[in-house]
């Protein structure tokens, strides 16, 4: 190959007369070339969208992102008062932070020039404008291909729909190991949920334990803030899930089911150990607790872990209060309740059952016997709707019925009596518990059911949780919604034959609030027995008259300070429904808070 020529290089001379390819100075200095539509330039962050979760900082391979607390931002459900600051002394412009941003707020702009002799200017808190407060087009942004989150939940296993309305078998089977790992792997550990959870449970930590397969550690985390994980893993109102940042763009992590996965799958020994290991010291101090509901149990347990001697007084035969006598078996099996309460008992809390304060022992006596008293007596007196014939003896109320039902399902009582055609009035979770329990009883006994459910509001505005509404319908409960009861109808003999209802309509007013208006038009819904589940009231009979007059009680709630201490009575603490309501996890939180408060109070006395 003699492919050479002295003259061939000279061909390059043609470029002497051609225009150079150099980018004009103007396009370099005055208005630098626009970067591509996909360019990974400096960050921009839409503060209105950003929830301060800090996931960007977690994924950052360079540790470039720190979450800075911002003065003036307020922490709220699902929002942290923090915003990401980026260190351009670290950033590698990989845009993984953009791809994983839970709230879709972080992006990268076309801006790419920052020059300074001051190193501090390279530490940058992005907002919707760029590093020089000049607006640039947004370039790199996440799309569904570059998505780094897993937005969809992994389905939890349930028992088959057919036939489940004929037994009290638990509806949800729980996660398999594989599914639990998959679900746990969706968590980004931002911890936004912790703020929202009334008990401030260590949610990211125990999810991490699930993901790492260390259930013992998970159980330890649970007992840090909640001694009723079995219960809460099943019937918690899971506010945490509404705060979960994954819910910003997809489905939130199934936090409740993961908690349940831990309690269901931790070997029993480990679980007991997790509960009891925390009780390490003994203090000379005694606390009496009124009511063994969630608040009482929680308070008792945490006082115990601090070393106090704790007695819990319970009117009924078994401790547990609402979790033992309220929730239906198909949601919360007896075994779960027993496991939790047994663990608390194993930690050294003493239960004094069948003893009602105010009847068997006076509050005064308790005050003398104990260094402090915690009252969590709950709401057990049913409310009665103000309708015609409201005092008819054929009308039954939820607390009593549900307690009977529980006694039956745990084999400690007969099946409650009920008619073949029943009407349930309500709208909240409890009314659904009643309706579904009745539905099951009827089918078990008669093979058929006729449960009619009356509520003022349409389906989407019911106070009960979504799943209750759907499942009850599936199970065969008949809905009469948008109807407001006006009278219980009696025949000549004085027996009930139905309920008269007025037709209602719920509309949105200008401010976006739902408003229910009922017309004069009436309708009769037939049934021979009426169950009312429209809420309960407290029973403060155990307070002596003198004390009661000094208590501040507003709408049935006793006023207490941050730690649950009743104003004017430093030795008395209160929590649960009589202070706050409305759910179990809040009660647990109250109990824990009160325990800390009692400890501080007693320590201050010494």
């Amino acid at each position, binding site marked *: 190959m003699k492919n050479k020529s002295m003259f061939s290089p000279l*061909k390059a001379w043609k470029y002497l007369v051609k225009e150079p390819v150099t980018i004009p100075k103007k396009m370099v200095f005055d208005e630098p070339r626009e970067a591509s539509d*996909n360019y990974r330039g400096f960050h921009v962050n839409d503060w209105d969208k950003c929830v301060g979760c800090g996931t960007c900082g977690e994924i950052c391979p360079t540790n470039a992102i720190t979450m800075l607390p911002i003065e003036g931002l307020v922490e709220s459900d699902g929002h942290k008062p923090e915003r990401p600051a980026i260190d351009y002394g670290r950033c590698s412009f990989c845009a993984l932070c953009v791809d*994983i941003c839970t709230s879709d707020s972080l992006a990268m702009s076309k801006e790419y020039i920052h020059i300074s002799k001051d190193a501090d200017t390279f530490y940058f808190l992005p907002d919707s404008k760029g590093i020089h407060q000049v607006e640039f087009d947004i370039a790199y942004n996440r799309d569904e291909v570059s998505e780094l989150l*897993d937005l969809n939940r992994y389905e939890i296993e349930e028992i088959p729909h057919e036939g489940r309305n004929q037994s009290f078998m638990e509806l949800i089977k729980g996660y398999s190991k594989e599914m639990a790992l998959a679900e746990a792997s969706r968590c980004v550990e931002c911890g936004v949920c912790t703020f929202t959870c009334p008990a401030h449970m260590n949610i990211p930590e125990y999810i991490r334990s699930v993901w790492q397969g260390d259930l013992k550690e998970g159980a330890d985390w649970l007992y840090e803030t909640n001694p009723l994980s079995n219960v809460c893993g099943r019937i918690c109102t899971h506010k945490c899930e509404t705060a979960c940042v994954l819910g910003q763009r997809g489905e939130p992590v199934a936090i409740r089911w993961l908690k349940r996965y831990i309690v269901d799958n931790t070997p029993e020994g480990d679980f007991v150990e997790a509960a009891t290991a925390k009780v390490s010291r003994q203090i000379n101090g005694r606390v009496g607790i009124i009511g063994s509901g969630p608040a009482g149990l929680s308070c008792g347990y945490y006082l115990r872990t601090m070393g106090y001697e704790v007695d819990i007084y319970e009117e009924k035969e078994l401790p547990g209060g609402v979790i033992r006598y309220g929730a239906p078996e198909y949601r919360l099996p007896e075994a779960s309740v027993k496991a939790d309460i047994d663990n608390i008992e194993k930690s050294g809390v003493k239960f004094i059952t069948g003893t009602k304060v105010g009847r068997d022992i006076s509050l005064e006596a308790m005050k003398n016997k104990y260094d402090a008293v915690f009252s969590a007596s709950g709401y057990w007196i049913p409310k009665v709707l103000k309708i015609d014939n409201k005092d008819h003896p054929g009308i039954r109320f939820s607390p009593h019925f549900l307690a009977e039902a529980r006694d039956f399902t745990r084999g400690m009582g007969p099946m409650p009596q009920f008619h073949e055609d029943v009407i349930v009035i309500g709208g909240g979770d409890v009314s659904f518990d009643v309706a579904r329990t009745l539905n099951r009883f009827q089918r078990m006994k008669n093979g058929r059911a006729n449960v009619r459910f009356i509520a003022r509001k349409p389906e989407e505005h019911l106070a009960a949780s979504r799943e209750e509404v759907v499942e009850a319908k599936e199970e065969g409960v008949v809905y009469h919604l948008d109807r407001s009861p006006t009278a219980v109808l009696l025949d000549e003999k004085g027996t009930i034959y139905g309920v008269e209802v007025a037709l209602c309509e719920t509309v949105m007013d200008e401010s976006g609030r739902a408003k229910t208006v009922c017309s004069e038009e009436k309708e009769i819904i037939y049934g021979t027995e009426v169950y009312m589940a429209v809420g309960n009231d407290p029973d403060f009979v155990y307070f002596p008259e003198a004390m009661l007059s000094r208590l501040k009680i507003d709408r049935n709630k006793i006023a207490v300070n941050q730690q649950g201490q009743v104003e004017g009575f430093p030795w008395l603490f209160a929590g649960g429904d009589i202070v706050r309501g409305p759910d179990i996890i809040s009660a647990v939180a109250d109990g824990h808070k009160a325990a800390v408060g009692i400890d501080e109070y007693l320590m201050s006395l010494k």
Partner: protein
Amino acid sequence: MKEVKLFLGPQHPGMHGNYSAHMYVEGDMINKSYALPGMLHRGFEKLMERRHWMGNLALIPRICVIEPDPNEMVYAMSIEKLAGIEVPERAHWIRMIILELARLAANLMAIGGIGAPVGLYTSVYWGVADRDLVLDIFEKITGARVYHMYIVPGGVRKDLPEGIEEEILGLLDYIEARLPEFYDLVMRSPIFQTRTRDNILLPEEVVWELGVTGIGMRSAVNKEYDIRKVKPYARYDQVAFSLPYGPYSDAFTRVDFKYVEMAQSISIIRQSIEKMPKEGPVRARIATGSALRWRVPPGMVYSCVESARGEYGYLVVSDGREMPYRIAVRGSSYPQGLLGVEKYLPGHRIDDASLWMDTMGVCAPEIDR
């Protein structure tokens, strides 16, 4: 004559990158020489053990700055093998386009850059300027000029932007037209041929002794030894291309082969654009959950691709956790860059030292890691 110590690099203009060769020189002849690597050592293999599988995406391209994409490819291939993931069809083709564009860019730099050790700076200016056009395409596709972070485990990070195919084809036409001009300027120049023909030989035995791969190997052993042919990855088995090979490897042949390879790259890209599915998914998930918690099943696997300088491979070990347990990098130019410098640079004149480095394809960052 007295023997003097000289060092080529690290800040010697004849050295590409931060690399050094210590030479014991007598007159103009190199008697003895040692490579002094490590100026670019960042401890990648250690750092990779400390980052998530996804977080490593930011790290891997930085191992070799000249041609970062093979890094992303071998990393992705390893994880896909370990996790048993099927990559979507379209993603395979996009990957091929990216890899070949990267090869094109690296080769443009090389055929232009060959001007530097021989003093023909015009070709350097041309080569780098033309390479910049490839980078413009990269910027449009991937969002960055140099470190693309585009080939991800499971596919590619984003789909191709609309209309980029025409732009790529336009660029290919331009480069194809430019190649003869480079050839006229550099390769057909008698002075260049005087310097490079029969100079800096790479006999077959040396190839096997050192473990040289890539163009150096093909030009010496007279076989089409290329990973793309021997163990095709992506969809290289579905495109037609043939690579140059020969029995006699001198500096000139090795540069000459780069021109042929570039023509082949251009042809592969054209075929890919034609054959690739026009739509469809481009990424499969490698694991459940958020990227913070991706896990790769335990195992050990070695993956390799053909970079512009030869076999480029990663040994990836996973212990089933969210971070790699160990990743070892086989830089393509490791053999010639270290043992080659020690054994075969001596015997050449110092005039040829930087030409030796250049035509052997010594790339410092991938050796140092």
